[in-house]
């Protein structure tokens, strides 16, 4: 009897204890850091975009409230009727797509190879490390390397001339297509390893029996891929595409170094963040760069929603 009561007491006491507070405590550091380092700066950026605030030499001008003036400037066409911000948005997206499409395709193929129980590739860890390697190099150092390789007096031009393919050096950094392709190539090289590893982990998470039973039912590899692997991998694909796109929209260091800050030729390799950065040095123009940041935020949100919606719908319609 007394034993029963003791047990009841025990239960009563512990039922009232909530473990949730420990959970909140453990996630608190993230939220504190997020609020301090991301959320507040984000609101400050929006706030700053309504002010005129910059350095003229060593003199601080402003901050003066100017309403939407910075946004108006942003969307005003220049003497040739070009609206800069749209041009740089399309530059950014084109360069990103040039690198991202091969990146997804190659990464998917590699992930399939590495996870295939039929191929059973040896030395997987080695290959995985090697394809991840380019991501460990600092992007600016990587860009500097390409700058040296492809310059007018660099080894690539010298080789092409010696082989008789070219008569005089080809100016890789003053030709729209070659600059964009080089940037895309570098982004591809830096990120396909990372994407491969993400896809691999996704494929390995799929129940093996599904593949086996499909094979027993007579499905060929293509059918297995399109009917089983891809649909079940969709959540990972959506995640990879959206994070890659956000990263792509923020593309900066590679084109900045490769084109010596100018986005040559004719600013066709100028990305949105390069444009933003240009306002910051040397004049610390927080108003204009704030307005560009807000635009970038809006574009990123919009495109992410579009990508998410379209891919999820695809998935449910299958």
């Amino acid at each position, binding site marked *: 009897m007394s034993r029963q009561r003791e047990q009841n007491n025990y239960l009563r006491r512990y039922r009232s204890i909530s473990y949730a507070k420990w959970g909140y405590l453990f996630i608190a550091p993230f939220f504190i850091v997020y609020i301090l380092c991301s959320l507040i700066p984000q609101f400050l950026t929006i706030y700053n975009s309504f002010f*005129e605030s*910059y*350095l*003229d*030499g*060593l003199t601080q*001008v402003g901050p003066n409230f100017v309403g939407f003036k910075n946004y108006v400037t942003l969307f005003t066409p*220049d*003497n*040739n009727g*070009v609206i*800069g911000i749209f041009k740089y948005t399309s530059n950014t997206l084109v360069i990103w797509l040039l690198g991202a499409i091969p990146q997804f395709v190659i990464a998917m193929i590699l992930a399939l190879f590495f996870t295939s129980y039929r191929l059973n590739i040896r030395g997987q860890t080695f290959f995985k490390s090697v394809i991840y390697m380019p991501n460990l190099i600092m992007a600016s150092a990587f860009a500097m390397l390409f700058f040296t390789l492809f*310059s*007018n*007096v660099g080894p690539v031009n010298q080789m092409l001339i010696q082989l008789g393919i070219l008569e005089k050096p080809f*100016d890789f950094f*003053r*030709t*729209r297509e070659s600059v964009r392709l080089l940037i895309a190539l570098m982004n591809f090289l830096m990120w396909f390893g990372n994407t491969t590893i993400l896809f691999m982990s996704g494929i390995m998470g799929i129940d093996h029996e599904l593949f086996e039973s499909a094979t027993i039912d007579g499905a060929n590899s293509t059918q297995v891929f399109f009917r089983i692997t891809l649909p079940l991998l969709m959540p990972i694909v959506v995640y990879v595409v959206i994070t890659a796109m956000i990263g792509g929209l923020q593309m900066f260091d590679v084109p900045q170094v490769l084109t*010596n*800050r*100018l986005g*040559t*030729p*004719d*600013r066709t390799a100028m990305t949105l963040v390069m*444009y933003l950065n*240009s*306002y910051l*040095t*040397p*004049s610390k*123009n927080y108003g*204009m760069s704030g307005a560009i940041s807000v635009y970038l935020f809006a574009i990123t949100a919009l495109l992410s929603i579009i990508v998410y919606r379209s891919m999820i719908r695809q998935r449910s319609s299958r």
Partner: protein
Amino acid sequence: MKKALSILLAVVMMVGLLAGCGDKSSKTAEEGKVFNIYAWNEEFKGFFEKYYTVPEGITVNWIINPSDGGVYQEKLDQALMAQDSAPADEKVDMFLAEADYIIKYVESDFTLDVSTIGVKPADTMYKYTVQAATDSKGRMKGVSFQCCPAALIYRRSIAKDVLGTDDPAKVQEALSDWDKFNEVAAKAKEKGYYMTASYVETYRTFSNNVSMPWVDKDNKLQFDPLIEAWIDQAKEFLDKGYTLPAGIWDDEKNQQMFADGKTMCFFGPAWYYNFCMGNAMDPEKGCFGDWAIIQGPQPYFWGGTWLLAAKGTDNPTMVKDIMDTFTINEEVCSKLVENEMQFSNNTKVNEKYANDPNYGNDFLGGQNDTAVFVELAKNIRFEHKTQYDQLLNEQLPGVFLDYFLGNITREQAYANFYQYVNEKYPAIVTPDEA
């Protein structure tokens, strides 16, 4: 055990912090122990380490940032703006400034009137170097250790091939104005040479002779006719293959200074060949001695390094000492000329070498370069400067290269340049702004 260890560590840390505090508070009101100099390259540092004896107990701290893209000014500005709150050992004591932007610092309150620490303009200094370092209220903020009349530097062997002579007087005759220069360029091209190794090579000859500043009194951007003339010339030179599409500091250009280079002319002052023509001096691949200088089509100057005192320096005596050493100390100035191929900012020393029949520069095949520069220095006009000059002069050629290469029209190049100016200097009103 762990607890004891962590307490021990915490105590050690606290002691360390307190020790740091103690250091600062116990410092006497005498001059600082750390001397901070901001610079954009190693040129002056080299002379400083050779010819200046640092007082005992003082550490000299060089903070060097590249000038390219305005990085140097940006870092310097940050430091100057934080000068008041910086601890004594981190205060900027002295910084170097170049002709393109010296006005920004001279006119600001971040520089010290050096007459208050006993530095005076000497009669032996070139007038323009004093004028450049003096603000509109007549306060002198620093001195220059060099005078920078610039010359046309040519390869003797190529001149012989193209013009049939390498005698400076005759080459000067053949290149005395831009029309003749263009004619010779065509001749050089026929023989398989380049006239210049960079399309920007002649830019300073035009831009430092302008008759109006980059911006007018209302801060409106304006193009001097000479800048337009340069654009015409650069377009013609690239179209006709007289020059290379390389920037002024690019490897592609510098490779042309080797013995197997095919370029006849370079443009620059004394600091250019002593500091930037390392390839020509390379013992294996270079062509030491195969050079000479002349005035060229138009006299001009380029650059120059001024030493400015930062307000709030805790080492005023050393600042004065350095400024005097590199301007009025004849022994040091003589060494600058003799050992470093400099053209010093001391007329007396320069004239001594100019008139010395035994003095010659081996790099220039024994030519007395100081004698040439003494004449050229008379033409220097330090005028029409703005605080925006560095980035405008640095990037105008870069932006216009797309036009020179035929990628865009001239109008588009102007539009791109206006856009560039809008981004860099919001205070400048460009023609595309209402």
